[in-house]
């Protein structure tokens, strides 16, 4: 069947046209793309704010903004990046687009709920934006909303808290949808251990979304109640306990790190076998390490609170578990490297980004152990070291995995190919810029530079300047990458259905995929990633 106006084969992009056909679409692929465009706009906004903060720190003292503006900037940067970009990022974009296809389904279990989730997400994002401008008092609490300050600050904290609460709903609904989809809609023959590893990672992630997000939702509501009704939950002035807030906040917000990183691990686990043309090494350990990360990751929240006054017993308990959670992460790293070892490695842009992910995530992981250790944590807490560690995990991990994912699945999504040379150049800028931006923060953090300060001792100027130069290089890389992808999506060469010779189901259907993915639901006969056997009957 073809589109009569363009004579192209009918696919999810052209079977209906017009803005309303997108805004009312329950097609998981279109919803995935709507998430991607929304998230990209917010990501660029927050990245520009990050650049402005780096320019401010180019010289000691006030450079381009006041201290209060700087406080507002790092708060809005954090709220957008965490709640609107990285938490929903991979799961909402690539999970929505590829989960049903990879398990052989025509859509998610609840398509209307899926569209509703996107609208809830948009409502939360708009509320978040509004909080920055209403009454000219953007929130200045940081994205963690720590009490007692957030209980008494005169800025728009209530609106920002409500925004985070609403965004949490979108996350819960998406998680619920994915769990039911994976349980109920796998293709015939696709047993749990014949399911590809990206859906496995989404499954582990969805459970965290479903179970942890309500806790932070209720916690944020309690802060709102404290501010508006003066009920003493967390504010000592009202008889509350600020450490309880930190407990409840991190019970969600630490597992939220795994909501960000587990799908990232799933993405690169798809890329390594495809670009090595070799079965993934240790399928079962990778599955169980995902589940182990999701489970153990639940019980390590206290490592954010070592200096907050929690008991000594709690500190060693959380420190021990933090070291424990490194084990399943390390299992994955060894599996990825072993997958490439002896394979027919094809260093195309997706693999380049995926290898960078391992490098950056490993640095982030090791420095996480430094912070998880009780003695060093006291020295490093609330310094730039934490900022560097966090960005190596979140941006170096989730961010680079997102870049890997878009370069990997781009020809499937758009049916066109981007320019490899420009993709490699953008990778070079991004990788160099990233390390120049964040690595100096490790050094300055060890030397005692506190985070969230708009001013600094002149002895830090060399490091701060290097970091700002890195920010500019990174932004150039982003501009090149986005331009290349946008150009490729509109004018790139027509891509074949399976340009990377992948074996999972998304590579067995046309590019772009048809509206309902499969003419006939496939029957799975083997475990995935076997390059010598067909995956389906």
């Amino acid at each position: 069947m073809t589109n009569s106006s363009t004579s192209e084969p009918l696919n999810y992009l052209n079977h209906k046209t017009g803005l309303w056909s997108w805004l009312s679409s329950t097609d998981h692929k279109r919803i995935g793309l709507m998430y991607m465009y929304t998230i990209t706009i917010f990501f660029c906004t927050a990245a520009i704010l990050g650049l402005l903060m780096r320019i401010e720190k180019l010289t000691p003292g006030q450079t381009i903004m006041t201290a209060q503006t700087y406080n507002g900037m790092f708060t809005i940067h954090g709220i957008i990046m965490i709640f609107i970009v990285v938490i929903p990022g991979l799961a909402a974009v690539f999970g929505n687009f590829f989960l049903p296809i990879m398990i052989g389904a025509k859509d998610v279990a609840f398509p209307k709920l899926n569209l509703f989730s996107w609208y809830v997400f948009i409502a939360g994002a708009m509320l978040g934006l509004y909080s920055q401008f209403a009454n000219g008092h953007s929130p200045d609490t940081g994205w963690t909303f720590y009490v007692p300050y957030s209980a008494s600050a005169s800025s728009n904290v209530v609106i920002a808290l409500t925004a985070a609460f609403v965004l949490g709903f979108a996350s819960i609904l998406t998680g619920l949808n994915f769990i039911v989809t994976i349980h109920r809609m796998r293709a015939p023959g696709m047993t749990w251990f014949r399911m590809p590893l990206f859906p496995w990672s989404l499954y582990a992630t969805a459970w965290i979304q479903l179970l942890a997000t309500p806790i932070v939702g209720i916690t944020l509501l309690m802060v709102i109640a404290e501010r508006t009704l003066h009920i003493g939950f967390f504010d000592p002035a009202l008889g509350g306990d600020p450490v309880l807030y930190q407990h409840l906040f991190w019970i969600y917000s630490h597992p939220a790190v795994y909501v960000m990183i587990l799908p990232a691990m799933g993405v690169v686990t798809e890329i390594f076998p495809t670009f090595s043309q070799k079965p993934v090494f240790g399928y079962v350990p990778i599955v169980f390490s995902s589940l182990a990360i999701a489970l153990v990751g639940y019980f390590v929240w206290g490592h954010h609170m070592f200096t907050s006054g929690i008991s000594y017993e709690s500190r060693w308990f959380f420190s021990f578990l933090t070291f424990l959670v490194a084990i399943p992460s390390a299992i994955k790293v060894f599996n990825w490297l072993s997958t490439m070892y002896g394979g027919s490695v094809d260093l195309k842009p997706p693999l380049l980004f995926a290898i960078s992910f391992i490098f950056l995530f490993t640095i982030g992981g090791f420095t996480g152990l430094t912070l998880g250790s009780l003695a060093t944590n006291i020295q490093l807490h609330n310094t730039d070291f934490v900022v560097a560690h966090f960005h190596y995990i979140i941006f170096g991990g989730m961010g680079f995995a997102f870049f890997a994912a878009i370069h990997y699945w781009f020809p499937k999504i758009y049916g066109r190919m981007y320019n490899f040379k420009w993709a490699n150049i953008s990778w070079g800028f991004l990788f160099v810029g990233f390390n120049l931006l964040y690595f100096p923060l490790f050094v300055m953090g060890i030397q005692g530079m506190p985070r969230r300060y708009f001013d600094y001792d002149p002895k830090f100027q060399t490091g701060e300047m290097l970091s700002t130069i890195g920010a500019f290089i990174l932004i150039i890389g982003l501009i090149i990458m986005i331009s290349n992808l946008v150009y490729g999506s509109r004018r790139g060469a027509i891509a074949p259905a399976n340009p990377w010779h992948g074996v999972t189901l998304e590579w067995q259907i046309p590019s772009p995929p048809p509206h309902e993915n499969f003419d006939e639901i496939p029957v799975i006969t083997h475990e995935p990633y076997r390059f010598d056997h067909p995956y389906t009957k």
Partner: protein
Amino acid sequence: MKNNENHVSSDSLNWTVLVILLILTTITILAIKIHLGAYTVALALILASIKVSIVLTYFMHLKFENMLLRLMVGGVFLLFAVVIAITFIDYYFR
């Protein structure tokens, strides 16, 4: 649900469950008047947990589901209980 069958609970069962829930709610309110100190919260949580279990089992038809789903729901409650326990153990040792 097992084999996609529909299960209709009898009216008498539904009424019995409702009465039990109301009795437990009454006990929860009356328990405030007994001065148990810090244990008041523990008692309220135990009563609330029993009520939640009854609602899940009968009103939400968990008793008709297969063992895997029952275990998963049970696991969720266990996880939540452990998280709450860890938080309050910190208070005990502080």
